[in-house]
């Protein structure tokens, strides 16, 4: 039985009580319930291994770059082309399409739900003939590398529960984020960098805030939480030595803290002490590795050109995409970007134009850049938000503006890279782009598939907390085999 990465010899109070009160019977039971840990038939080969030792099966992807588009990008203006919406613009949504469905408080009081079509033109692109709107000209050029899922759906209808759901598998806060689960399960491929790094676009904090708990470790040991790299002179807060403290001093100090920590741990056996000591050491190594990563001044001009002019400005989505590539090159396992501002309740055309201008070119550049460096071989790239948007307009439709409300029943995402079919589109929605008609991919299915690509059986990576074994996909999730290459 084990409660964290440093298993067996370490007991905290809870572990101690659980073991002593039930004794050997409980241990025997434990090995029945969790063969993963107790039955160590498969000996771990991994040298910086996570709890799994080895993956459950041959992994296709070694790392993930998750380009999270926070706020709910509108599928109707980007990838899920529905010409009927333009044809029927201004008419009421048919009852048969929307009847009985939950709406948010923002549009449930509307007298009518008028159909609104995309203001932006769609075209077929690439050999695969994928529909992409004129908002994403750069993405349109690389569609043959992408796998679109147009039948994503979620349980939540508001931002916070929906983001929490897609990031942690639960609408309630407190569970570990995907990246934390992966670091916990698979460990790290680079001992000088955290295996879970978060990059948030600067200056996009609007009505919908992002919380650091979205990349939190939940009940997993704290060394598995995501580490945010900020733009500016201090990428990781409090990482640098304070003025007057030399590296040697800091090393000496850490050695003493280490000794104290070990004494303390020998006395009371709290595994969180080891966790903290690991973090101190990681921070020390990061004092040299992080500045090296964040220094993008040596990138050649053609790379800046490729990612767009924004990429020279630290903290932009473009600069973060460039950083994501640099982190991927250094084998960071889970790199998560957040780009806010997709919440188009009103003034949608202007908002979409702005958002796409900020993200389209860097996203496409990142994928192309990974490809030409051979990194797409074993890197999985995901683009997507927490839910979709309605086919009816929130508020009135004017000559050049309209809005769309939150819509959990369907939304589009795309993936590219390791283990994923290229130039492929999966799932479909009805003529109004409102309900799924085939191959539904629920958030838990998406998470199960993501883990599968990294070699993890989502049902077999779990953690016992407060008497229950938790996992990312809760008690759900089915791997979407159809999109696997």
């Amino acid at each position, binding site marked *: 039985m084990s409660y964290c990465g440093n298993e067996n010899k370490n007991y905290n109070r809870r572990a101690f009580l659980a073991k002593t009160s039930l004794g050997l019977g409980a241990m025997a039971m434990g090995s029945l319930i969790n063969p993963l840990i107790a039955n160590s038939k*498969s000996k771990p080969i991994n040298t910086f291994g996570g709890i799994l030792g080895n*993956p459950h099966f041959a992994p296709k992807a070694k790392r993930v770059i998750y380009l999270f588009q926070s706020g709910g990008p509108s599928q109707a203006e980007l990838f899920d082309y529905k010409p009927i919406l333009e044809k029927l613009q201004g008419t009421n949504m048919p009852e048969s399409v929307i009847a009985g469905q939950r709406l948010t408080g923002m549009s449930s009081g509307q007298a009518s739900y008028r159909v609104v079509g995309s203001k932006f033109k769609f075209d077929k692109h690439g050999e695969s003939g994928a529909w992409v709107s004129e908002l994403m000209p750069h993405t349109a050029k690389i569609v043959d590398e992408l796998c679109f899922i147009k039948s994503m759906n979620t349980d939540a209808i508001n931002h916070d529960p929906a983001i929490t759901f897609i990031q942690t598998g639960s609408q309630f806060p407190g569970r570990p984020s995907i990246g934390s689960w992966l670091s916990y399960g698979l460990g790290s491929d680079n001992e000088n960098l955290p295996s879970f790094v978060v990059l948030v676009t600067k200056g996009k904090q609007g009505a919908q805030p992002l919380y650091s708990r979205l990349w939190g470790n939940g009940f997993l040991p704290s060394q598995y939480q995501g580490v945010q790299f900020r733009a500016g002179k201090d990428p990781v807060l409090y990482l640098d030595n304070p003025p007057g403290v030399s590296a040697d001093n800091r090393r000496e100090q850490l050695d003493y803290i280490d000794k104290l920590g070990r004494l303390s741990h020998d006395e009371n056996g709290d595994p969180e002490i080891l966790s903290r000591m690991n973090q101190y050491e990681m921070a020390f190594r990061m004092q040299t590795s992080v500045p090296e990563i964040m220094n993008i001044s040596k990138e050649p001009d053609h790379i800046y050109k490729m990612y767009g002019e924004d990429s020279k400005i630290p903290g932009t989505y473009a600069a973060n995409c460039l950083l994501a590539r640099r982190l991927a090159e250094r084998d960071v396992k889970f790199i998560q970007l957040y780009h806010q501002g997709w919440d188009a309740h009103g003034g949608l055309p202007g908002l979409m134009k702005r958002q796409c201008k900020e993200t389209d070119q860097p996203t496409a550049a990142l994928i192309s850049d990974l490809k030409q460096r*051979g990194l797409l071989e074993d890197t999985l790239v995901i683009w997507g938000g927490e839910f979709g948007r309605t086919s009816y307009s929130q508020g009135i439709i004017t000559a050049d503006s309209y809005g769309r409300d939150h819509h959990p029943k369907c939304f589009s995402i795309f993936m590219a890279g390791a283990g994923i079919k290229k130039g492929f589109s999966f799932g479909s929605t009805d003529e109004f782009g409102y309900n799924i008609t085939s191959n539904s991919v629920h958030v838990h299915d998406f998470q199960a598939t993501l883990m599968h690509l990294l070699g993890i059986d989502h049902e077999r990576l779990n953690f016992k907390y407060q008497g229950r074994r938790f996992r990312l996909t809760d008690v759900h999730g089915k791997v979407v085999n159809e999109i696997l290459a």
Partner: protein
Amino acid sequence: MEFDFSAFIGRFHPLIVHLPIGIIIITLIIEFFLKSSGKIITWLWFFSFATALVSIFTGWQLSTVSFYSESTLFWHKWLGISICGISLFFMLINIFFEQKKGLLLNIFRGLLLVLITIGGHLGGQLTHGNDYLIEKAPVVFQKMVGYQPPSKIDLSSMHLDSVVTYEDLIFPILDQKCVQCHNPKSSSGGLDISTKEALFKGGKNGEVIIAGNSEESDLFHRVSISQSNPKFMPTTGVPMSFFEVELLKWWIENGADYEEKTSSTEKSEEIIRIIQKNYNLDFSPRPWYEKEKAPELLDSVIENFSKTGFKISGSSSDNNFIEIGLTKTEVDGSLGIDKFISNVIVLDLKNSILSEQCFEDISKLKNLIRLQLQGTNTRSENILQIEPLPRLEAINLFNTKVDDEILNHLSKFPALERIYTWQTNVSASGIENLKSIRPDIEVISGIE
């Protein structure tokens, strides 16, 4: 259905045949132990003879409508007739002679018992199959007669590419279910199934396999019709299982080729499942490294190796394949991977300075799928030094000094699918040239 007298009366043979057996035995016991004689014995021999005669008649009728192993049938028939004859002989002795003792007569009595035992056993074999008795006998006894219980065929040790459909999948079924009667010695219906040539020739009604048409093929027809049909095969013993019939059908439908490799025949998911189930051969379209296993690795070997500046990660829980990366930036001398050359499927040496010897080591990695040399000091000579790796799918040479020379050499790598050559001296014309030799290889030389 038309009434068939022979079939009807013939089926009484197994019933009636036990009458003479019982009567003969009881007569012998009475004669031998009770030393009794007289009219009653004469009558008993008469009943033995009479019921044996009826048995012969019904047996003969049955043989005309059924398909039994001809050699067994031959001996069964003549033993039965002999028994009938000897019964008649004893009846006549009892009627016409006073003297009923004597060595010669006792020899005849013993002979009769032996004949009944053998003839009865042959009859049992005809109805129940040859292994009926022995398959439930104690193991010691089975070993004595050299009987090996039919075990599930396990071909998992075979290389998938060398499995021949007929020889390895179809013939074992025919061997088990048909060859007993259809062999050169007793080719029932003129059909011999024991060799390809004989099977191809067919039986007395011509070919039994029509390539591509299972319905028209007698071989398939006879094993797939209703079991109550007298033409159903095999007439005795265990019929073919559903899966065996399906395999046979699949083989015939796909041209009934005797030499074709299973790997090159089209297989439905169902057929793949059946082959997996019956032969433990996995033809599912999964990559080889999910089906094969590498030699086991010792923890100490891994640990010592990782201390020399490498990181190792297992590919999955049980196949022992590993991916190797570097934690140092320079490899001087050998990679030191001799102890696990067949375990390595991914070798990532990116951004490091490599010695000449590394490339010699790489040549030994016959299971390597991906080789990452980007950002290393690799030159064309180094690549030319690597012997074609049979399983290499991708090689990353981004940001190295290689040039067009390597392309011709890499075209000899049979499984190669992707070459990364951005920021190298590889030219567009070189890539064009490679495309003409190996259109299946994609060269990624940078976007725009």
